[in-house]
């Protein structure tokens, strides 16, 4: 068998033992996918049921036209307010991370100067630091800056948290761009800023997408920093707002599950559309 053929059909094991192994692995995969997806489907299905139905007939197929619980969540709770805050905070943080991260990465990847490696390692060290453990000093710092209970305070913390990984991902990518591109533009009379903006950055977009997803998912999902820093309901993010809303509707399971489903919906849709980029983005740094 040629190498190319082997590549297309790695499962070319022969004999009944190998067949049995393949069958076992297939069963494992199907069972696992069921365990991964079934609870999520049940969550969405419960959103279509009344509390009494959830208790008495949990496995019955839901009446998909019964949108009562979903409407309750959208109309009677602050769902859209929390959603807006999450979008604002995640979006602004990513903008900040990409701007500062690209600046540092470009300087480090495209210019050699004394201290270059030291500064790169300085950023890398930030990758291993669990910033959660610095929450007390951050709390004091935000109080001094008068940014407690504000969205800007969260954005600043998220930018700080995301910067190391963005510098790591973007520097790695920018180093691979050939310097001939720069030289050619320089001969045409372009300055440093122009070369960066018009020649190099358009080529960096794929790495920017990876760096953006790598940080957007944990920021979008974060609960810890809002818990510590935000108290005012109007400034809460979606995950944080969800806990408030759970407290309010403790006994109404139908509405609870509708709320959970609606909160999971935005990121799930984007994930299904962009699963390749999501997987690449979230495992980048862990995968060479």
């Amino acid at each position, binding site marked *: 068998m040629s*190498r190319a053929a*082997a590549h297309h*059909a*790695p499962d070319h*094991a022969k004999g009944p*033992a190998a067949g049995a192994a393949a069958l076992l*692995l*297939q069963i*494992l995969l199907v069972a*696992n*996918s069921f*365990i*991964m*997806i079934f609870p*999520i489907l*049940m*969550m969405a299905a419960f959103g279509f049921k009344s509390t009494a139905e959830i*208790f008495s007939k*949990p496995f019955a197929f839901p009446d998909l036209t019964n949108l009562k619980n979903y409407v309750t969540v959208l109309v009677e709770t602050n769902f859209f307010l929390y959603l807006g805050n999450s979008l604002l905070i995640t979006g602004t943080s990513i903008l900040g991370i990409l701007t*500062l991260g690209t*600046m540092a990465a470009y*300087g480090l990847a*495209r*210019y*050699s*100067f004394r201290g270059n490696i030291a*500064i790169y390692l*300085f950023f890398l060290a930030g990758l291993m630091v*669990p*910033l*959660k*453990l*610095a*929450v*007390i*000093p951050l709390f004091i*710092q935000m109080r001094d800056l008068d940014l407690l209970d504000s969205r800007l305070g969260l954005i600043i913390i998220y930018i*700080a948290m995301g*910067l190391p990984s963005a510098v790591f991902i973007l520097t790695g990518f920018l180093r691979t761009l050939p*310097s001939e591109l720069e030289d050619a533009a320089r001969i045409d009379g372009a300055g*440093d*800023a122009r070369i960066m903006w018009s020649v190099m950055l358009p080529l960096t977009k794929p790495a920017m997408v990876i760096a953006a997803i790598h940080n957007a998912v944990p920021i979008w999902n*974060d*609960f*810890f920093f809002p818990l510590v820093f935000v108290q005012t309901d109007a400034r809460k993010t*979606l*995950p944080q707002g*969800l*806990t408030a809303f*759970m407290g309010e509707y403790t006994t109404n399971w139908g509405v609870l599950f509708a709320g*959970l489903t609606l909160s999971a919906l935005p990121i*799930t849709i984007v*994930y299904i559309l962009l*699963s390749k980029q*999501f997987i690449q983005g*979230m*495992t980048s740094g*862990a*995968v*060479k």
Partner: protein
Amino acid sequence: MSANLEWPLRRRVWVTFLIVPPLAFMTAFVVVPILSAFVYAFYDWQGLKRADFVGLRNFLDVLGREPWAATTWRAFGHNVIVFVTLMILQNGFGFLLAYALSRQLPGHRFHRVAVFLPVILSSVIVALVWKQFLHPVFGLLNKTLGLLGFGAVTTPWLGLSETALWALILVNAWHWVGFPTLVFLAGIQRIPPDIIEASRIDGVTEWQLVSRIVWPLVAPSATVVFILLFIGAFNWFELPYLMSGLEGSPYGSTDVLGLFFYRTAFGNQSSGAQDFGHGSALAVLMFVFIAAVSAVWTVRLRRREIELS
């Protein structure tokens, strides 16, 4: 690229403009807070005000004096259990799934997307959904068990000291197993196909292939997921907080260092007191422990990678 001594002033200004703002930001909001935590731990705190310098007292308190020490060590023990169990459940099972996915059996693309689906969800959603599913009477788990004829083993999983921590560990594994799976999968896909091909021709069994060839060759992926799990397990907070509450109910059976740190620093409903001194001491100890073990272990795992390659 040119050496910076020959650079015209304009370029020096340009590179300074690129490097300094991100560097300043990192310094102000990562380095300064981390270093401050070390300073704060040596002081007594009156609410949000720093009071007297107390030397090592906060550290000695949380490690050896009541009412702190017993809680610290119990929580630490729970973190160890969480870490060890997840090493097997999450990383071990993740490797197995990765191997299964690498065989490119029918439907592998779907299974790859499915295993990663919970990973993208917020801990809040995962915790609250599973909290309802684990409800003793109306929860989906006990309903399913009843339906399958296992009604006898149904129990209030989150309500018993014997089962609560294990329930949380399983939920965590459900949430995160996709991460090690896809990191291992990327590692397996980097193995040159000829190696697998050759060993198959030599007639090795499936098990030998997995344990003697694939596992050693994904050592770099193992290093990454082991270290990340270690950091995650000793920082564990969201899941126990949302499913068992700030005190690690029932009876502290799910109390971990993250909860104890948060309670100490920011108070709880019963006392409402903020104790930044002892809180900082706990944070510093956790930080030093995580950093030291990760560093030593990374070196050892890297050495293992070289030996196995």
